[in-house]
């Protein structure tokens, strides 16, 4: 069944603001969002906001199903509108604001990019870096983010993390996807290649802090959720890398490409993930669960979305050896009968 690609939220909002009733309801949600930022909404206020949200979305369904495009010029404005009309989470928490129908990762390009990365003893990440630096804009965008992430703020030994994040996102959004994902997910068989892969996103600036102190993961997530862009990239990751034991790829949406893109989308935000060492393809967030109190398990679960996620691990491994997984959505095999007889 062909699903038409949803409207862009900026367009949907433009239609709405042309109609006074709609604009008033939207303004109401703006107010609700502003209050929600200061402190959690009380029951009564939440109910009123919800009514406003429902009235708006009933009258203007295009607003309720509108989506945004990653890396587009008006992305942040679009996301702001998206999260206004999704102010109070509906049933599906992990819906993604991004529309992947238009730019469903061109499997062929990703397979092409990954097929050149055969696991031989050559440094695949050096090859991927080479493939980028000698390809049109990829080289200069790469230099741009490296410069932004290694330059010291005058008179200090610190870097400007905000500029670094922006440049990293620009790189990943502007270069051809197979180049960007190529340098991130190149397969390694030795620690030199692994160290290059780990340092590709300049960890000393993109997420580590000066004293090497890790924040609490829930604390990090709360910062992320206050920023429309980070919140969107996190929702996109939770949505597209959702594990499922029922599909061959281990991914609910059965697409390694969508998961890899969603993971890469987090790079350059407050929740920038990275490889944990140069000797394995395990990835994680730069945070720990110390000081989680009674939310220790919620914290572990957030951590495990990166460290114990079969969908993500399979997708990363797939990029390294494309034969290892069906890349496209296929029917999940029926649960296998395996009698376990034990006297």
């Amino acid at each position: 069944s062909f699903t038409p690609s949803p409207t862009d939220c900026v367009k949907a909002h433009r239609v709405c603001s042309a109609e006074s009733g709609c604009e008033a309801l939207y303004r109401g949600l703006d107010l609700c969002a502003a209050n929600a930022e200061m402190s959690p909404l009380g029951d009564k206020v939440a109910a009123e906001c919800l009514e406003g949200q429902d009235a708006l979305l009933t009258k203007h369904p295009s607003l309720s199903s509108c989506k945004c495009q990653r890396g587009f010029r008006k992305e942040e404005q679009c996301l702001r509108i998206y999260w206004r009309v999704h102010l109070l989470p509906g049933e599906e928490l992990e819906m993604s604001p991004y529309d992947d129908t238009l730019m469903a990762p061109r499997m062929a390009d990703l397979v092409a990019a990954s097929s050149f990365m055969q696991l031989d003893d050559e440094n695949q990440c050096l090859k991927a870096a080479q493939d980028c630096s000698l390809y049109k804009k990829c080289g200069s965008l790469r230099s741009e983010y490296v410069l932004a992430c290694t330059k010291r703020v005058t008179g200090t030994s610190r870097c400007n993390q905000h500029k670094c994040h922006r440049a990293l996102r620009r790189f990943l959004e502007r270069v051809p996807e197979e180049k960007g994902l190529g340098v991130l997910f190149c397969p390694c068989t030795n620690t030199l290649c692994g160290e290059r892969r780990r340092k590709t996103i300049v960890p000393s600036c993109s997420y580590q802090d000066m004293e090497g102190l890790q924040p609490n993961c829930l604390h990090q997530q709360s910062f992320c959720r206050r920023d429309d862009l980070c919140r969107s990239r996190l929702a996109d990751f939770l949505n597209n890398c959702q594990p499922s034991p029922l599909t061959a790829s281990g991914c609910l949406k059965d697409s390694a490409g969508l998961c890899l893109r969603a993971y890469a989308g987090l790079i350059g935000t407050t929740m920038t993930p990275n490889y944990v060492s140069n000797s394995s393809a395990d990835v994680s967030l730069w945070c720990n669960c110390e000081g989680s109190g009674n939310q220790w398990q919620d914290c572990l679960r957030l951590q495990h979305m990166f460290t114990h996620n079969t969908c993500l691990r399979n997708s990363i491994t797939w990029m390294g050896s494309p034969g290892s997984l069906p890349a496209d959505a296929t029917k999940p095999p029926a649960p296998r009968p395996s009698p376990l007889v034990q006297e």
Partner: protein
Amino acid sequence: LYFPQNEYIETVYVGQPAGTPILQVHAMLDSNSERPHFYLCWTSNLRRPPYSSWFSLDIHTGILSLNKTLEESDFTLQYQKSWSVKKLFLQALVLQDFTKKSQCSGRNPIRITLDFVNATMPQCAQTDMKELCFPHRDTSNPHIMENRFPGALRQLRRLTRLNVCPNYTISYNVESETPAPFAVNENTTELVVTAPLDREESERYRLLLVCSVRTETVITKVETSLDVFVNDEDDNSPYMNGTDTADIIISFNRTMGGSFGNLFVFDRDLTPIFPIAQSHNRYDGTLLNSDPWIKNTFDIKDTFSEKKAARGGIRETVHNYKLVLKRNLYVTENRTLQLDYLVNDTTYPGLEGTVVLHFNVTILPIHIQFSNVTHMFTLTRRASVYAQVGRVCVENCQQFDGFSVTYRLEVPDKNVSADMQSCYTAVSITQAPDEMWGLLYVNDTEALRRPECQDLQYLVVAQEEPTKQEASTQIHIILDSEANKANPVNQQFLSCAVNRRRADCESARGLGATTGRCQWRQGSEKGISEKYSTCSPDLRTCPDSFCDAVESKDTSICPQDCTKGSVVGGHERGLRNGIQAGYGTCYCYTEKCFCEKEDIEEAICDD
């Protein structure tokens, strides 16, 4: 009333008939009089998902079941594009009493996620024993609040598989390596906690659930582990493990923000860093001294961290208390005092929620004085302007913080002749803003050259700010070579760093050259290295990656340490400025430095 589990996951299939039980949610009591009432709820009535009517939740038992038979058309109805498994999201509430309202907002609902698979339920022959016995993959482990009432916390039976193998008999029991107050209710196959728990005893129970499947001929046992977490409550008061008193001596370091001493207060309860607003195990502290001087001078800083207790590795909280200076202390300050600080665990219900800390503080005065040795320095008359002569420092100056000491030179004998007076312009003293020592350097080469300027004896006066305390000492600068051998008067000096080759370098009279001639350093390493070849006024101080007080008077003295301009060629910049490492030979013009391999041929044709 609270949910021990905030998420349930199950799989539903096309063809499952109405009335099929899917799963059972549980609630735990906070007080014995409570009775749970379970409801499905929706975030917004207007935007209910199409599947909202397919399910119902029994108000008393919390059993979720199907209202209708799931059809193939139900699967395709779902708006979630073409995935092979569709996610249905439900939310449930538990309340003390009945309600008609089905709105979830603001009431901490739990999430039920159903994987709706476009296939029929596997028959008995295709059903794995594990899938028959246990939910597929239950990400959410139960959390039980400590000190609460016993009760059922989870249905072990996989309700969707109740009738898949009718002639099997399924029973459960629970085992654990360490004694754990858990059991299975054989009639309801629910896991029950049989006694109130104490998190400080054990915060996580590793249970082994054993499912026995009995057919006519065979008994099959299937196991799975289950972690049950115990939630914390502020039921422990703060305690000291060791001394409650810190003896502190404040001497050289008397700077605002300086911290002293370490006292530790322990609490077996947890202190969450996040969310910040949470008022769980919240500490505050009060200074018990009323003396205004103490209040204006000292503060106590409390930082807490989580640590694993020696016994059982249970997480607990450690508070670290330090004495902090709120302002700089004068060097003349000289007093002893005892400071008492009341630490209060504000959320601990009991009476003994406080401890008192004691800081015995001794503030020693600082005497600004030079060590009583005669400071002798030798200097060649051929030295260039800015040549460094030596360094002077009052005793312990390296450890000072919170006040500053400035140095000046004076002529010891005021009534020397005018001619002799002019000799004293030969040497001057300077100091970097954040350094506590003075640097002596050549200020006037003409005075240095004059024969009558023989015996340079200065008085160095050190003055402390803000109290103006002073100390002085005599220094003696011995000029080693004869006056006439020195170079002609009003000699002009270039920067040593301009020279790119040893011959030019060692023949040049550069700024800051202590011997009068520049010194060549020959690098030997291949690539970019800290030992790059370069021409320097004094290899002891330049390059040393530190732009000192004399060098910063004129970047031409030691651009290798001080340049802020661009550096062409393979190099690494210093932390602040200068060239940390370079390729081949590094040399500098006024605005720009180069680091490159020296080409003999290119150098000749350039001449």
